């Protein structure tokens, strides 16, 4: 290795050293300890005893583990694609060259920066079965609105609906992607006699597919870790209809003091997220187009 290369390598290590040290000190340690705790009967205080894989096998017979998994997966399967589609739609609208567009962009982005609890209070009003604006609007359509958060069937859809409040963040990422598409590609479609749909299907979608992929992966990860919204809004009720995985994990750790079991739940969650992310990366070869990448023969 030449002198310059050694210097570059040294600088590289220097630059990443803080991040690596931060990870080792604040994350690797707890991650390792939680893996250990998941094999014990730790109750937070006191000396934990080794139980092997008992915490993991206990999950198989724990109905609330399956309930929390079902709720979280349902939420992810519906909320993520819905959020992706809606934020793309809004981004397309915000990408138009009209007067005052920056005001519209700010308006659509603003909700995503409002804090969780304030949003929760606002949505409690919106979803109130008696005087909420949602049921009022449904009433104009002669639809008798449900009891939303108080109803077992509607509580989870309510939270899915509420999740759309934060589409402003992914809208901005889409917008950046849309603005990076060269206009000559659209002109080529026009020359070929293509219309709006052709432009969207054959230029816009392939060109922003890396952005869709990014939003999809991060969306899946975030939804599997959903906690604050449900903690404030429903506390897992009614009758466990909104018992998210993260909430069940928290309860085991800090309400029941079953830190060993909670650690095992955390590791299973990590494995689920890891598996889903790997699966998405595998399938991405089929539908994500990276400009400048070399296609395999």
């Amino acid at each position, binding site marked *: 290795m030449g002198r310059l290369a050694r210097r570059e390598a040294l600088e590289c290590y220097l630059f990443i050293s803080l991040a690596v040290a931060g990870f080792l000190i604040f994350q690797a340690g707890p991650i390792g*300890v*939680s893996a250990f*705790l998941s094999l014990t009967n*730790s109750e937070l*205080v006191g000396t934990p005893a080794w139980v092997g894989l008992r915490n993991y096998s206990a999950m198989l017979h724990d109905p609330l583990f399956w309930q929390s998994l079902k709720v979280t997966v349902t939420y992810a399967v519906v909320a993520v694609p819905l959020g992706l589609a809606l934020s793309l739609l809004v981004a397309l609208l915000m990408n138009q060259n009209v007067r005052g567009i920056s005001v519209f962009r700010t308006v659509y982005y603003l909700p995503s920066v409002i804090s969780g609890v304030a949003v929760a209070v606002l949505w409690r009003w919106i979803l109130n079965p008696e005087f909420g604006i949602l049921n009022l609007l449904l009433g104009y359509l002669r639809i008798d609105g449900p009891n939303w958060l108080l109803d077992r069937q509607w509580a989870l859809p309510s939270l899915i609906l509420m999740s759309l409040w934060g589409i402003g963040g992914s809208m901005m990422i889409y917008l950046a992607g849309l603005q990076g598409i060269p206009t000559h590609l659209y002109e080529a479609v026009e020359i070929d006699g293509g219309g709006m749909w052709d432009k969207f299907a054959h230029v816009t979608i392939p060109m922003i597919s890396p952005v869709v992929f990014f939003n999809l992966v991060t969306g899946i990860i975030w939804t599997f870790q959903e906690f604050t919204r449900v903690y404030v809004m429903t506390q897992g009720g*009614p009758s466990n209809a909104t018992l998210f995985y993260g909430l069940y994990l928290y309860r085991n750790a800090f309400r*029941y*003091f079953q830190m060993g079991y909670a650690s095992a739940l955390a590791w299973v969650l990590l494995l689920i997220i890891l598996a889903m992310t790997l699966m998405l990366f595998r399938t991405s070869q089929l539908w994500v187009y990276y400009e400048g990448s070399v296609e395999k023969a």
Partner: protein
Amino acid sequence: MRSTRVTRRKLLRLGALALGSTALAACAALPTGPAKPTGEPAKTAAETTGLGSQPGPTTAPGGVPVKITFMMWAWSPENEKFERDRIELFNNSQTKVVVEPLIMPYEDMWTKLDVLVASGQAPDSVWYDYAAYKLIAKGQFLDLKPYVDNAAAMLDDSIYDQGFWKPAKMLGGDSPYALPIGGEGMNLFYNRDLFDASSEPYPTDDLTWDEYRNVAIRLTKEEGGKVVQFGTSLAWLQSWWAWVMLLWSRGVGIVDSHFSPTQCTLDTPEAIEALQFLQDLIYKDKVAPDPVQASVLSEQGGDFASGKVATMVDGGWDVVSFRSIDRFQWDIALLPKGPKGRISPFWIGGPMISKQSRNPDAAWEWTKWTAEEDGQAMIAKSGQQVTWLRKAREIAPEGAVPEHYSKRFETLNDLAPADVWSERWNEILDKVWNPEFDRFWKGEITAAELVKAIAPETTKMLQGA
């Protein structure tokens, strides 16, 4: 001669050790062991012989005051100010101990406390709440008996209400783990204007639960097929720790013992009848709001504060928050009676001392002060709780109080601790009770069906299954 040279290997070992220790501390999952106290509590505890503030003999090397941390939650900015004022008053009243507050929102506080205890950094003093029970059961707080035994006045019923001790001895023995400096029971709150408008006499001490229902029926008003005024609201009575009063008034309870429960006793005819009585107020008599109607009232300032509810069983603590009501006149009465009398659920509040504290004697000085004249006067003036010190109950709270404010004290003549001290209680509530009670309060199942669904499973879990 031994070499003291630091070799590269030694340095790496030290580095690895430091990194490992930091990581373990950061994860806050394994205890590093409690800090050794500076002395035996019984030997150094101050003796309280009177009611005046008497800072004890805590020593501070070199005359430097001993610093202790006190962890407490606050519901509101006013509440936080009260805590800070209380601490300031103590800090200014003596020179040996300085209390440093650690005040945070309720939920955050208990999660943080768990982590601090697990990492061996527990605060010296922590305000008691049921949420601390698990840590108490795991030996993380000091038995205050050696201190209390040296404070004769605290054991004198003419000075301190001895009824307050029971919930402070939550492990069932004779050892208190919190000093019960304030307590609270429940009362019947009523809207005088609505009673006057219907020429209904105000509730008396002889009111029974059946008569309470009749009053509620008479005071419920409908307009156009819609209830515009409710005779009552269940509100807290939908929480087990409140509706348990109806079971007690019929001579039954929810568990065989609140201190070491092994059996759920909800499956008695009296208990089922009491629960059905409450559900009927909503769906049969239609005198109390259902969950949807209650959600509307809650957005109008709360059930009672909305002015559309004539009576409501509520904690004495709301005497303070209801002072802001200026749209109508209200008052409080004793709870209704049942065939076996009247018993109010009861809770206490007060400081505990962490087993990890390096300065337990200093923490006791602070704890003791909160029970003495100055500390108790602050509580009385704020109206936040009923004071443990009987004499302080003569001090009127600042601001307006209802005409029969003394009923807040009277309700404590017949009390029982409401909490169930079992390490699995929260788990039982989350996994067994809450899902079924959600259905019960929505009128989907009857009291008999509810009890059938939860009683056997509760007993099984109490017995460790």
